[in-house]
């Protein structure tokens, strides 16, 4: 499958350097903008500022080694735990709905005799082209009782007007924005892998009188497993980083605090409280948790999905 630049080449020594030269731009950029920031965050997370005297003089603020103190403080902060709890609840609602709908739509698009399939596919994929911030603004306005069409509908039906931006329902308001933005992309990934399955696989099942529903559940979904795992991992990572949507909707309601999600807490620690050390410690914890969860999930499903088929 892959070729070898073997010793057959006359420019032996020079050509052995070629792959490293070609990779140099990526490696340099990766080091500068991924490895170094991670290292710097870890370094900062172990430091703190020591203020001597009144903290007014030039040398009165000194950065010193703090050990694990920032971590202890970060983990003891109840706000971090409540924001983590909110994100877990958000993910537990979002992932099944978003991926379930994506799978349902992909399977429906793949079955024969569906009308207007191209239109539906494009329409459902369309929100992918809308930035999360813009999506949050659009839905934010739709949630505002004064301009919401849902208010009009509720009035016609004689029901109380819904107000998704108050109290506990705000989490569903945020979930809805993420579902709207994410379902199309996941649907397209799943639909594309369905299209890559050779049609002959279905023939005998159809001849045996298998319905489209049975075909989907018994044959297509098992074959989709690797793609489902990939979309789940990417959605999981995105979920743990939720930031833009609640931050934007916050402009329209009082129900969202400035530390509503862990990332919002990091942002507010770093820029509003000016405590970059505590923000760094929290960042490292979040990055670690994300890695553990995504690797853990991959390990969990690896045996069924990637059994020797990878690369």
């Amino acid at each position, binding site marked *: 499958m892959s070729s070898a630049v073997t010793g057959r080449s006359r420019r032996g020594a020079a050509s052995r350097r*070629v792959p490293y030269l070609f990779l140099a731009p990526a490696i340099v950029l990766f080091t500068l903008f991924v490895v170094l920031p*991670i290292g710097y965050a870890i370094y900062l997370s172990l430091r703190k500022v020591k203020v001597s005297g009144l903290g007014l003089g030039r040398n009165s603020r000194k950065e010193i080694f703090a050990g694990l103190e920032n971590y202890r403080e970060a983990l003891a902060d109840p706000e971090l735990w409540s924001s983590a709890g909110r994100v877990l609840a958000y993910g537990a609602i979002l992932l099944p709905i978003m991926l379930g709908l994506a799978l349902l739509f992909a399977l429906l698009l793949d079955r024969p005799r569906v009308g207007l399939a191209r239109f539906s596919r494009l329409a*459902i994929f369309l929100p992918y082209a809308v930035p999360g911030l813009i999506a949050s603004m659009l839905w934010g306005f739709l949630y505002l009782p004064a301009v919401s069409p849902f208010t009009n509908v509720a009035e016609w039906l004689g029901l109380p007007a819904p107000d998704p931006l108050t109290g506990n329902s705000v989490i569903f308001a945020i979930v809805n924005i993420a579902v709207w933005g994410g379902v199309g992309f996941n649907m397209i990934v799943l639909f594309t892998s369905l299209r890559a399955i050779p049609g*002959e696989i279905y023939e005998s099942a159809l001849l045996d009188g298998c319905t489209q529903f049975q075909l989907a559940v018994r044959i297509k979904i098992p074959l989709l497993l690797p793609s489902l795992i990939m979309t789940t991992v990417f959605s999981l990572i995105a979920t743990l980083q939720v930031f833009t949507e609640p931050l934007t909707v916050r402009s329209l309601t009082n129900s969202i605090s400035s530390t509503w999600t862990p990332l919002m807490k990091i942002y507010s620690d770093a820029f509003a409280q000016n405590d970059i050390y505590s923000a760094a410690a929290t960042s490292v914890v979040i990055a670690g948790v994300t890695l553990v969860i995504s690797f853990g999930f991959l390990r969990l499903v690896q045996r069924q999905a990637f059994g020797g088929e990878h690369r």
Partner: protein
Amino acid sequence: MTTLTSSVPARSDLDPGTPRRREPTRTAWLPTAVLLIGAFYCLLPVAWVVAASTKSGSSLFTTFTFAPGGDLLDNLSDLSTYGDGIYWRWLANSLLYAGVGGAISALVSGLSGYTLAKFRFPGRDAIFNVLLAGVLVPGVTLAIPQYLLLAKVGLTDTYWSVLLPSIISPFGIYLARIYAAAAVPDTVLEAARTDGAGELRIFGRVALPMMLPGLVTVFLFQFVAIWNNFLLPFVMISSDGRFPVTVGLFTLLNQGQTVPALYSVVIIGVLVSILPLIALFLLLQRYWRLDLVSGAVKG
């Protein structure tokens, strides 16, 4: 004798080469309806913003939400005059960040993916795995240490501070590697080497054209990712003249909390910002090689 003749057509029925029973051509209504509900849900906010953009600030809150008004042009001119036309500058900035960043990113990803797919060298798997692990690193938690590091070298609040971190894309490298492995035959590379072509020339003249469809996909992914990115420019940029349109609209929305008249400017701004991306998206959809993402690429 009779059993034999009767079994012949039955067997040919099982033969995959011959057409099966004719498929009924009527539409499956339930799946169609479910998909149309999905489409309706996805188009609803877009339809709303189109309707709302045609209304004046006061009728926004008084008329039925989907009833169009007659103030589209007034709203557009309000948007254009706001802050001496700074909105158009934000849009141009977004285009710059996403266009230039996406193009360089596709090139770097293409070169890296090609090298990882087509060369054998010590450390190849280690390099690939480390780059790939970058996909799992929560990109957004990087933004703050990136900011602090760039602040040390005085690059924050410059175009570079958004462009440079956007170039490296582990996902792009991964896609380019899959595509290079499938689309660039080893024999062609061997032939070029036999002809005495240099490696850089082989990449530029032979491999790059073959990888173009895959690289267009990488470019489109990066373009959308950079255009949609909010946190990175939000953290890095403080001068409103260098905002991309997402950050610009966010600051407008926040001012709208105290100046509700700005809401209609925000709404028309939202509409104008999504139209180019939707147009680009519809125009270029056939260039998206999404089979790459699902891992189902066929050479």
